[in-house]
């Protein structure tokens, strides 16, 4: 298939693998920021092809994983209302809230639907004028333009019975937080290619300079990952900092100006809590005041209940690259995709689920023999 097969070519992969080996003289730790990249790495067994000196740690770029428990509970409360049609991307449905997940709300009679585009919700709202159609607007800068577009259209077309529950997050503040943490061991980043498609990579340049790290804008196919790793290792070995962009077929320095304008029209930057990490300043988007009529959180206020949590899940450490999924004692035993303890075990982009689903054989250890 055009534009896919070229980036999965075994010969080219072997050439890159050799180049990485030849370039590596010391141990290095690289973080791939996006969960989609983690997914590719384990799906194609890329970590198993690298020299032992190179450690890949998995970043916080999984929207499902970092949406706070309070927001999941809020979504569940709104979804259970009989006057609401609750729409979400598919993998939010299985994320455990304090007591249940959205799939359970659906099983108990709630009208919970999977959509592929937030614009589908506008159509639904026009078909069901007697109910409010709420879209769960989660994700990074990648999904923000489409979600902004849905709100913008709703206002322009006067679709008053549509609303969004916004829990958008931004990548650069999270990278800043990771690099600032005392336990940080990340020496270089594979930046999230799709986020950069929208936002460009200008904002990573000061980050690279401030923390003296190389950042490589990286795509999602196996060859993209290998190329990103190769350039990251080269920069580390040569002591270079800055931003390089081998994903130029999709990313420019400025990003997509139309998408950025739309985000800026509808959203403003706000502090945001990240599940497993805590509140990071200026790390999220919320609706601007002129779009607040479409804020599902205001329309359906939910009394925040104290969330009761346990301590066994180490998702926070995993999302910051401090630990690997297999270092968690619950991994694959008490915590599985069917019975997830934490959100990183839910989405196929979550590091734990990616390891569980596609992990290399030797990493599974006791689970496979159980």
């Amino acid at each position, binding site marked *: *298939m055009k534009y*896919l097969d070229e980036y*999965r*070519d075994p010969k080219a992969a*072997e050439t890159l693998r050799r180049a990485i080996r030849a370039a590596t003289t010391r141990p290095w730790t690289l973080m791939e920021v996006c969960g*989609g990249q983690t*997914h590719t790495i384990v*799906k*194609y*067994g*890329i*970590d*198993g*092809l690298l020299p032992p000196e190179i450690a890949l740690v998995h970043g916080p770029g999984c*929207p499902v994983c970092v949406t706070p*428990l309070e927001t999941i509970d809020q979504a569940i409360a709104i979804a259970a209302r009989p006057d609401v049609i609750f729409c979400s*991307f*598919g*993998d*939010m449905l299985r994320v*455990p*809230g*304090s*007591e249940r997940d959205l*799939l*359970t709300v*659906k*099983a108990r009679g709630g009208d919970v639907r*999977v959509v*592929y585009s937030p614009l589908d919700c506008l159509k639904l709202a026009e078909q069901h004028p007697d109910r409010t159609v709420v879209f769960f607007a*989660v*994700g990074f800068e990648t999904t923000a333009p489409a979600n902004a577009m849905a709100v913008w259209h709703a206002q322009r077309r006067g679709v008053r019975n549509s609303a969004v529950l916004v829990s958008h997050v931004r990548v650069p503040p999270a990278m*800043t*937080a990771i690099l600032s943490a*005392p336990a940080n061991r990340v020496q270089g980043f594979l930046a999230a290619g799709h986020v950069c498609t929208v936002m460009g990579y200008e904002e990573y340049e000061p980050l690279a300079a401030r923390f003296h790290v190389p950042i490589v804008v990286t795509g999602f196919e*196996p*060859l993209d990952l*290998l190329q990103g790793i190769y350039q990251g290792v080269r920069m580390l070995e040569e002591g270079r900092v800055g931003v390089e962009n081998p994903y130029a077929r999709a990313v420019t320095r400025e990003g997509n100006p139309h998408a950025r304008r739309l985000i800026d029209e509808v959203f403003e930057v706000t502090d945001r809590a990240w599940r*497993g990490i*805590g*509140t990071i*300043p200026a790390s999220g988007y919320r609706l601007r005041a002129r779009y607040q009529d479409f804020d599902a959180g205001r329309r359906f206020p939910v009394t925040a209940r104290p*969330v*009761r*949590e*346990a*301590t066994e899940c180490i*998702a*926070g450490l995993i999302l910051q690259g401090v630990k690997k999924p297999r270092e968690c004692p619950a991994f694959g035993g008490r*915590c599985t*995709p*069917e*019975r997830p*303890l*934490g959100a990183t075990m839910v989405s*196929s982009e979550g590091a734990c689920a990616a390891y*569980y689903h596609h*992990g*290399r*054989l030797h990493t599974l250890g006791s689970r496979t023999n159980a």
Partner: protein
Amino acid sequence: MPDTPNMDGWQCPTPPAAPEQVLLGHGSGGRLSAALLRNLFIPAFRDLGLNAEEDQASLSLPCAEPNSLRLALTTDSYVVRPIFFPGGDIGRLAVNGTINDLAVGGARPIALAAAFILEEGLALSDLQRVVASMRDACKQAGINLVTGDTKVVDRGKGDQLYITTTGFGIAPPGVSLSVRNPRPGDRVLVSGTIGDHGIAIMSVREGIEFETVLESDTAPLYDLVVAMLEACPTLRWMRDPTRGGLSSALNELATTAHVGVQLTEAALPIRTEVQAACEMLGLDPLYVANEGKLVAVAPADDAGRLLAAMRGHPLGRKAALVGEVVADHAGVVTLRSLIGGERVVPMLAGEQLPRIC
């Protein structure tokens, strides 16, 4: 530093209680389905002879000679939405699916029973279309439909039309296909492209359009099975990988036979449209349903002959040798990726949900 993450606040949710209600995932053919079978149905019916390992039960006639003909019995319900889709409809599926559950046990399908649950308000013309299609499918497969039942439920209490078919077949003496037969060294073959049915249904349901119409692969497989058994009497096991796809069928094999299975990604036959749809929706073709394909295991020495016989049959033209049964990693299915890495292919957990981005 203000932007240092505050780790003190990090906590994790308590595990949600075991589901108190049936979830859609219980019907996905993956782990939840297996758990339902293991924890609820098997304990209830084990001492009544429930065989949960194969797609069909095999019964011997009380008056028959030992090692003579055996009867094969299977039943399956069809709840597909929409009821008409490119390449078929719920009626054709209900006939072919049950025939295939008999065929993969080596049994010749003889007769079907069909039970219909109709929702009040279903257009009679739609019912007529479905029934005509069932008749065509029976004729095509050379099977009789000899008894049936009809019930009607209130509007809103069913989704147009559900069909249950029960199939009755005869297994010739000497044929012993079982999920416990495969041995390390055996080869794994599939009869054609995987994932066609599931993606055809999903593309209608989700309104995804392709330049060509992607059709369900629904087809009766008995004729292909006859050709395969003729070419390869040593055939160990077959399964039609429907719900849960190829991965579920092979995981059942690995678990029950205590063997490992090693697949080669580059060898898997997948249509370009199916691959494209899976890329867009974030699905894995290994987990997508098939309705006219089978997976077979045969001794290595006979695999070449078997493959040639499959490719010589109209329903097996795209057949391929896709993997091997191994002694390592018993109970686990692995896959060698296109670029040479290795990964585990686990049983589907819950439903296969589309990814966000």
